[in-house]
């Protein structure tokens, strides 16, 4: 998983989850991204680099805030720009599925 993907996944997880659960979800998302068809993974990685350039720079300059990434994701979830919405949707669907499937009463 790339740096920005990790930030987005972290922001999409429920805040009430404990560390082992967060690690389990992150591992699942990482594994699924690795399993994707190569051309789709390349597209997602390119988007991550592009969309994450600003936040990454802010982070390197010591100005990065988790809350800013959360606000950004919230905007993208209902954005009229297809590619932004689909980017968040992909990662959100992986996080949501894992988060809910890893609960003991999933079925």
């Amino acid at each position, binding site marked *: 998983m790339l740096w920005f993907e990790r930030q987005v996944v972290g922001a999409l997880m429920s805040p009430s989850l404990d560390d082992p659960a967060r690690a389990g979800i992150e591992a699942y998302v990482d594994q*699924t991204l690795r399993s994707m068809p190569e051309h789709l993974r390349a597209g997602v990685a390119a988007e991550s680099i592009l969309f994450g350039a600003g936040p990454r720079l802010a982070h390197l300059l010591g100005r990065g805030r988790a809350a800013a990434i959360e606000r950004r994701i919230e905007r993208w979830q209902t954005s009229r720009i297809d590619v932004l919405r689909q980017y968040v949707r992909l990662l959100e669907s992986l996080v*949501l599925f894992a*988060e809910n499937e890893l609960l003991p009463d*999933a079925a």
Partner: protein
Amino acid sequence: MTPRVHDTEIVIIGSGAGGAVTAAALAAAGRDVTILEEGPWVDPDATEPFSLAEMVAKYRHGGSCAALGRPAIAYAEGRCVGGSTEINSGLYHRLPAELAGEWQRTYAIDEFGPSTLDRYAEQIEEQMGVSRLPGAPPTSSAVLERGAAKLGWQAVEFSRVFKYEPNGRAIKQTMLRTMLPRAIDAGARLMPDTRVRRLGRDGDRIACVCCEQTRPDGTIEELNVRADHVFVCAGASQTPPLLQRSGIRRNIGNGLKMHPTVKIAARFPHPIDHGDVPMHRVTEFAPGLTIGGSASRRGHVALALADSGNDYADALADWERVAVYYAAIRSEGHGRVLALPGLHAPLVTYSLTEGDMSRLARALVHLGEVLLAAGATEMYPSITGGVVARGEHDLVQWWDATSRNRANLMTVHLTSTVRIGENRARTGTDSFGRVWGYRNLRVNDASLLPDAPGVNPQGTIMAIAARNADQFLSQG
């Protein structure tokens, strides 16, 4: 390092609905059969159906496949011994007679009449144990029956490839439990974890099947399989790229069809059964539009709720009263499957027509109508920004909301990438799956279907595979 060589009379690439049926028929006739399967052998009881563990173990790309287009369409397929029969809902349907007749005429397919296909379907049904649910349907299924009855619409309980034990346990009759054991008992060899890279051609024959086999320790061994006859049964998304990588491209991979699907997460005033996929289908508008129920584990409910882009926290907390339903259309559009140089996964694209978008909007509204009639109190459509519907007046807004940049679509049925028939301008094989221009190369899987049938295609795939195997045997 020199590849290991394996000699066999018949090699079958793929162990899903097409490959396993072919293997069982040919092995039972005393032929020397080897089955190559890219995926692993996974104990059918090792994971819960539709769970995260099952997706990791049995789904291609962990379930993260998509056909690119506007909109992109997510799809799922199996990658394990038994193929997609190990992960589907087990619904079984014969090919509607009118479609068999239409396909026969359009593509000039010999011996493809409804009576011929029904004869093979009967065989398959007997061997697989096709049955209906004993007793009352689960609540998730009864909802569809109830809603349709209130609207005066037709709904039917579909047969499934399930057997029921005296204690009530339902066991899905996948290829791993039916056709593959038959084939192996009759002498066939099964090689899991064996990916075919390409077919080696020698004039109008396939001389060698070049594979890489993953050993239990993770190392990879080169393997060349030499066979008199080659059956490619890798499914509609994998058969074309294998043929293309092998230099066989005429009418291969360019006719992809599917059933684009919209979904609704529907909340009811009462708990809904989540242990089984509904077996009822609303067939009022079939085969152009079919309404049914999806897997509704907590994870699926969460995904479906999130698709609308509305706040769903309250509904998710109440997930035991929420279930996921779908409406699938027969699409006018079509797509392509294309091998990309140097990459394992093919590029899959699909173009929906304006008519398809209109049908999807209509499908979503009809699905909403039947769920409302069944007592749903809240409905979250798979349309970003689509209003959460609580009454019939809300459904109207879904017409406009179902647009290319708002619709979240998926499918589980890919077909038609190497069509059969004597019409050489439109088909990749003859009427029995023999690839044009090659004496010993056949395709025998979902790729052969001339179009998406509007119903679960596994019954059609198996009937056609049995028919083609029979024709092959009749040739000596």
